[in-house]
């Protein structure tokens, strides 16, 4: 993270598009871990994830974007194969 000495005062965003640089996964206390052996690429986790943190490539579920994932655990709950477990950070 930027040092407070380099941050503009008062929470001012002095360049446009600053939100692109902001990562929102830093308050997670549990992270999802997928067991690819059990995964059937049904996309339930992709559908239910409220933060679009499930990465899909060529119709395959390949993992999670950890800079977006808040660790809510909805993917683990939604997975019909119990392929996703929540592990403490």
């Amino acid at each position: 993270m930027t040092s407070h000495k380099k941050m503009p005062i008062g929470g001012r965003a002095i360049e446009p598009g600053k939100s692109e640089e902001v990562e929102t996964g830093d308050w997670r206390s549990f992270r999802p871990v997928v067991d690819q052996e059990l995964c059937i690429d049904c996309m339930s986790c992709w559908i239910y994830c409220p933060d679009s943190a499930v990465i899909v490539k060529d119709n395959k579920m390949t993992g999670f974007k950890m800079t977006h994932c808040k660790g809510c655990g909805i993917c683990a709950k939604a997975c019909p194969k119990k392929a996703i477990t929540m592990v403490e950070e």
Partner: protein
Amino acid sequence: MADLAINGDSAIALAWKQIDPDVCAAYPITPQTIIVERFSDYVADGEVNTNFVCVESEHSALTLCTASSSAGARTFTATASQGLAYMWEMLPITSAMRTPVIMAVANRALSGPININNDHSDAMAARDCGWVMIFAENVQEAYDNAVMAPRIAEHHDVQLPIMTNIDGFILTHAVERMTPLDSTAVKKFVGDFKPLYPLLDWKNPVTHGVMDGPEYYYKHKYQMVEAMEHAIKVTEKVFKEFKKISGREYHLVEEYRCEDAEYVAVVLGSSYGTMKAVVDELRAEGKKVGAVMPKLYRPWPDKHVAAALEGKKGVAVLDKHAPIGAYGALFSDVCTTLIDMKDAPAVYNYIYGLGGKDAKASDFRTIFEDMISGKAVKYNFMGVEE
């Protein structure tokens, strides 16, 4: 300019006229009303170029002021008591947005019971909102503080709002002799407001008032802590420069006959004048006593207070507000300064003058007599008859 016979509110309005701010938004409330009333006369008479905005409440006044300062305008407001309380939601936002709004506060008791007279309960309830706070002993200081305030608040190392406090009625309404500065000298001294990344800079678009996650919030707060620390040096520098144009010398912590004093009383505002008279009286009787006033109250000038109190036998701290269930704010601040002092003086808290109760010289005299005779106790709620 020739000396004037003027009350504190009009003196502040005069300083504002000489500064000619871009925007002023305020809601009338006794005993502050005269400030904005006089100032609106100046606006109506075309003596200033200020955009005067009539608002429907103090909450709106400070919201507007914060926004207009964000836009890049030098912005003034004034309030008192319930008005300051009604602004409370905005107070920490104004400071966190680093908008150097200038606010005169005519210190008045907070209701209830309903009371419109002077004490410091309004300012003390707002003391940790990230505003620089400065107090005046008399009408001259009310005017001088108003002239110096923009220089402190708008300094790029500070960029925090400032409250210039004056005792309601005692200073706001009482007429005193006051030496104003020449208007061109004031203009030159105060200079132009150079805002950092103002909203109305079309060529460099910026966003103000964004939401912070925990990490950013934490760091932005620390930036404010650092800015407050800078305010100590900046205020000292402004005082020094002000002396050059006015001949009047101010210190962050004013001391009166303290050099060889064994017992001192720490007090804020107009009571400092009364206390100095009592010190003279007791000095004439051979008692080694002195008076101290932390003119700059926020940031708390820790080292300067320590220097004033070091080596004393006893320190009485007078609070003109009543925290119900705790000690006075000024007393608590003094205690934080004394906590790591070797051979620190004994310290006593005196609550006085609430809701406009007379703060008499004879009462102040008993404070010193209590300390000298060893009868002083830690907490005293003065003047309550059994």
